Structures are given as C-alpha cells and as structure tokens.
C-alpha cells in the first residue's frame, strides 16, 4: 500500500514523515525517528509499556496508527527529559529503586505523571488504581507506589485516608 505523509509535532518540534498506514505509532517513532523510549510489550493494548502522550493525553501507542498523528502533538520520554517536567518523579523512581529491568518504566512514568497532574488528593490505593493499566513483572509495584506517593506529597497533593 502506498505511503501517507504525516505532519505533527514531536517533542516540541515540527516533523514530517512518510509511513505505511499499517504502522502503529510505536513502530513508526522507533523506525522513522530512531527513538528508543517508545516500546512494545504486547501490541494488544494491555501491558502499558507503549504509553505515551498525544495532545496531552496518555494513550497506547500500539493501538494508534501513525497516520492518525496528523496535526497532533506527541510527547515521548525524550521530550520530557529535555523539558524536565518529571525530573522529580524520575529521581524518586531512581532513589526508591522503582525500576529494575526498566522495560515498563517509561509507560509507568507517563501514567504516573498523568495521575499526578490531575490528582486533587492522593492515597496509595488511588495510585494503584490509576496505574492498574501498567504491567511490571520485576518490582511487585510497591516501590513504584512509594515513589509516586512521595512525589505527590512533595507537589502538595493532600493525602487522604486509605479505604480499608
């Protein structure tokens, strides 16, 4: 099938590329832009390893076609590293060892930041619920919850009592 031209913003830069319509966003970004932070884990939208931001919302990159990026603004970890938007969260993950093999980490950070940026109150169970679309096999999740909770408090999100 013939390629289609896609124009969009990638990590704050205007870019353009040709793509086979069947390419999903992750394969597209990895191949055409040589980004390595976008990853595939399952290609059926369950594991969350492919989570990235399109127009400010987190989405499953493996369930979106590259051609659908036309006119959108895409943010991957490469962009967040430059802007420093989640440097506190990255440091908390690092210090708390909330990353082991690292494969889930980008998706986990994206999902965590999505929650942090909207949360009015925080509890461990709320964090667990919001991250429930992200699979990790190494950490057992507790360190991740610890790191996100710590950042939530530091950012001034007030803590509420856990439901028992």
């Amino acid at each position, binding site marked *: 099938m013939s390629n289609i031209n896609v124009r969009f913003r990638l990590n704050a830069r205007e870019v353009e590329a040709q793509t086979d319509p069947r390419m999903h966003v992750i394969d597209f970004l990895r191949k055409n832009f040589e980004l390595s932070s976008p990853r595939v884990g399952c290609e059926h939208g369950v594991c969350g390893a492919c989570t990235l931001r399109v127009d400010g919302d987190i989405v499953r990159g493996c369930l979106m076609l590259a051609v659908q990026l036309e006119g959108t603004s895409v943010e991957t970890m490469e962009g967040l590293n430059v802007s420093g938007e989640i440097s506190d969260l990255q440091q908390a993950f690092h210090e708390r060892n909330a990353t082991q093999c690292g494969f889930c980490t980008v998706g986990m950070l994206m*999902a965590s930041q999505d929650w942090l940026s909207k949360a009015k109150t925080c509890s461990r169970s709320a964090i667990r619920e919001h991250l*429930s679309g992200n699979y990790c096999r190494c950490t057992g999740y507790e360190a991740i919850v610890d790191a996100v909770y710590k950042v939530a408090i530091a950012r001034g999100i007030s803590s509420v009592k856990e439901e028992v």
Partner: protein
Amino acid sequence: MKSSSFAYERPADIQEALASKARWGLSAKYLAGGQSLIPAMNMRFNSSTCLIDLNGIKSMRGIREDGGELVIGALTRHEEVASSDLVQKKLPILVQASRYLAHIAIRNRGTFGGSVALAHPDAEWPAACLLLNARMRIAGPNGAREVPAADFFQGLYATALQEDDLLESIAIPVQSPSERSCVLELARRHGDFATAAVMARAQVENGALKNFAIVFFAVGDLPLCDKELDNSIQHIIAGGDLSRIPDIVKTSLMNQNIRADLYSDQKTKLHLSGVLARRAVEKLIEI
C-alpha cells in the same frame, strides 16, 4: 504481531465516510477509537482492504442536551463521557460505569459509539444503553433511522447495524433527579472485562424504591434484562426480604443464554449475577 496492509482514508464528514465504505465494500472497516479493532488487526484476526478513519468527523463528537435527553456523538471518547459535568448531572450512571472501564489510556481513545457498535458482551456502554432505553441514531446509504437499544443489541457482537451503516450518535433520556443508580462489577483485576456485572436503577418515592430495573452483563452474549424480573425484584424490595433475590435472578437468567468463559462456568455466572443483583438493591437502598 504486525497488521497486514490496508489503505487508509480520512473522510471529513458522514457522507464522505458512507461513500468510502460503499466504494471499498465489505472488507473496509470504520476506525473509531481503535482500542478493539487495532489489536485484532495486530494479531491478524482481522484484515481490511481499507480503514476509514472517522476521527476527523467533528459532527460525530460531543455531548449535548436536547429536550430531556443527552445526545452523545458516536466518536465521543470514553474519558470525555466520564469527566463530563453534564453527564455527571444528567446520566450519573455513565460516570459510575466508567470507573470500571479499562484504563485511562484506553479511555482517552476508545469511543462511546465504537463500543456500542462492537457490542462486546462484557462492555459497559451497551449495558448502560439497554438500561437507560437509549436510541441509536444510524446513518446509512438509504438515509437515517433510529433503533431503540432493546432492538439494537441482537446477539454476540451482533447489532442492528447493517453492513454500510454508520452509528452517528446515541440519544439517552436523562435520569431524573429523584433516581438512584449503581454499577457493580466483579472483575479479576481492576479495569478488566468483568466475570459478572450489573447496572441497576430505581426511582425514589417517599423514601422507598420504585420502578426498579436491572441489566446483567458479562454473563451472556449480550446485556440481559427482563421486565418480569424487574417487577419481581421490585416486589421483593417492597416486602423487605432481599435474601430472596438471588434465587429469582438465577431462575430468570437460566432461560437466557448464559455464556461460560475460560474461568467461570454458567453456574458461577448465574450465582454471581444473583449476588450482584441483591447487592445492587442494598446499595440503592443505602444511598
């Protein structure tokens, strides 16, 4: 798990979309949220000659109030419904249901109409549409038509949509301010499709529940409801002995097509439906 090849079109309006579909024929598919279609294509369970991307059709998006109803454009994202103040006010059961609906990344792309058109037996929106007496507004090559939910959902992944139809919007009568509703799902993991689930509503008159109605989903080929069962449960509510509810639910549902899944057989599904129905009533009473 890479999809096979397909052509891609992005119509600007409904007429263009219908024309694309007519041109490409049977093997072309409409692309809405893609949260169900794209995994199927990645796994090569589905292949298409052309995907017709509806996401550019602005008229299919948005939620508006229209004379005692909310009209939800088919391309409205799950999360738009879940976070809408209007929906919270007029159709709170949709917000209640959205708490169980997959995860935020899926909800940001998946669409209300896409879910209704697919009619996955475990999905929340088809069940909600049935309970709320929604009407599906369909555009087709022969013009527009409306199909009430009870007629729309016909079987496992089978709806009233014909091959060239396009679900344009869903009209739902608002819940009255005196109404209570709840959604209860039993799922192995938060956000998964449920093992068994119910949505229930009732009016409140003088502190008592009236006009109880319940839909069971994730246990059959399609969401299940039965007026007689609703009346029987209403009767029991009036009488006060809620422990009788599970048995009449099981008796009623046994006549419907209850579908076992990998982890729960029919008996389990029936049992859980009975328990959930009783718990739904308890919840409505305590609200």
